[in-house]
């Protein structure tokens, strides 16, 4: 199942990340996972949050430039080679991963990986056939 990831444009300035997290926190929005892609001048903050729609509108109102991107979150075995197994499936199908970041669910034993990848619908089909667990929106908001 596809999940909406929130991306925020941040200039490389002191306090900007703090401001984003403060805005979200004040509205009771929980950040499940995050990663930052950065260059010398700006960064893109990518987040999986508990309520993506609300998060988007609050951030926009607070003056941030925000966009939503579809990603998937897959569960992988927390053991050596766990990630490699999933990536190999994708590579064999010639599917290019644009970026990924991982996090660990507090209750779970396994690692969770956010994947931004081309041909998302095709990827979902493929991973299902290969018995890779893809998290649903509900599962993520319950994490």
């Amino acid at each position, binding site marked *: 199942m596809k999940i909406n*990831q929130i*991306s925020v*444009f*941040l*200039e490389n300035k002191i306090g*900007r990340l703090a401001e984003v997290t403060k805005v979200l926190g004040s509205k009771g929005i929980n950040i499940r996972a995050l990663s930052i*892609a950065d*260059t010398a*001048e*700006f960064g*893109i903050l*990518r987040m999986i949050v508990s309520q993506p729609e609300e998060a988007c509108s609050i951030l926009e109102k607070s*003056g*941030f*430039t*925000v*966009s939503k*991107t579809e990603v998937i979150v897959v569960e992988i075995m927390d053991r050596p080679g766990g990630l490699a197994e999933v990536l190999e499936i994708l590579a064999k199908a010639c599917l290019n991963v*644009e*970026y990924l970041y991982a996090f660990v669910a507090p209750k779970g034993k396994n690692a969770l990986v956010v994947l*931004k990848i081309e041909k998302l619908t095709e990827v979902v089909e493929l991973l299902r056939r290969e018995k890779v667990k893809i998290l649903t929106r509900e599962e993520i908001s319950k994490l």
Partner: protein
Amino acid sequence: MVWNKKYECMPREELQSLQLKRLKEVTQRVYHCLSFYRRKFKERGICPEDIKSLKDLNKLPFTTKSELRQGYPFGLFTVPLSKIVEFHVSSGTTGKPVVDGYTRKDIEIWAEVSARSLSCAGVTAEDIIQNAYGYGLFTGGLGIHYGASLIGAKIIPISGGQTTRQVMMMQDFKPTILTCTPSYALHIAEISEEMGVDLKKLPLRVGVLGAEAWSENMRQEIESRLGITALDIYGLTEIIGPGVAQECPEKKGLHVFEDHFLPEIINPKTGEVLKEGEEGELVLTTLTREGIILIRYRTGDITTISYRPCSCGRTLARIGKIKGRVDDMLIIRGVNIFPSQIENVLMQIDEIEPHYQLILERKKGLDELTVELETLPQIFFDEVRKIEEIERKIARKIEETLGLRVGVRLVEPKTIQRSMGKAKRLIDKRKLK
């Protein structure tokens, strides 16, 4: 609508003989009243009697802003202080302010040319004018006010700033005319959009916008976001204030009220008078003012002039939209550019709203210009690669158009300072060293 048909539609020969008569009068007066002018005339070996035709104008010396500053505060008045009824000072976009002193007759002239300007833009006694030019020492607010009063229009003297209040007034008082700087008009559009107010649905129909150089593309942006016809007004404190020249709805240049202000275009480097259509610095001579008389005043504004009559019926000369200021002109690695040219390029790129500023720095002895642009959802992507592509695309477009390599940097929304008056587009960090 023509406010004063006699003067605005006067056959050129008749106008020229009027100009010559007035020019002779003012040269006599400044020569006899002010040692400042007498000394300058003598240095050039001329006296007022040498002015026999309008062509002799170029024998007269130029007057510059720095000379006016040296006369601060009242040194260049041509009448005794007792005749002065009002003071204004220039907004000081560049350096220290310059003082203008107006006699009762000067105020009447100002009201007249301002009324001509507003009529030229289509204002009548039926209109309600939201006058968002600053009131006070700046000439914008009161200049428009005097002209609007003469016409008998209804004035909301709201002055600049307090933008949410401006929008509220627009909804409640339903003005038909907005007068302010073009950058402030865009700011009002932005705030009204945030407030969820659609200005296009209000009766507002014309903007009389000036006091800073603005591009044709900025006009389109203002017109589409406010749902108005945006027309350019030109003026400067030293000459009188707003009402020196005004664009009519033909949008083919600004009519100079030549019976009061005699225009020339010169090469800013050599001082040579240029031909019709050639681009250079606008020079103005006041023909009727009393408090301060300026002979061949170098405005610092870059434009062109045309003497062809306009289809609106006016025979007055037209100057093109001001392209920039002589002192705004940047020479970067040998390329001459005006900030307005960069703005023009930016506005041609669909996704972009023109909230930008230019940062000029010197790195390893070379001047480097960086364009900072605010991001918008339309130009924000989740991938670094795509954002960098946008930056490169804009830089390429500027290089293709202006022949200058610049850096482009996206910044967060609302981080570039909004102006209530004249927009500050250039930050020159070279001077700080």
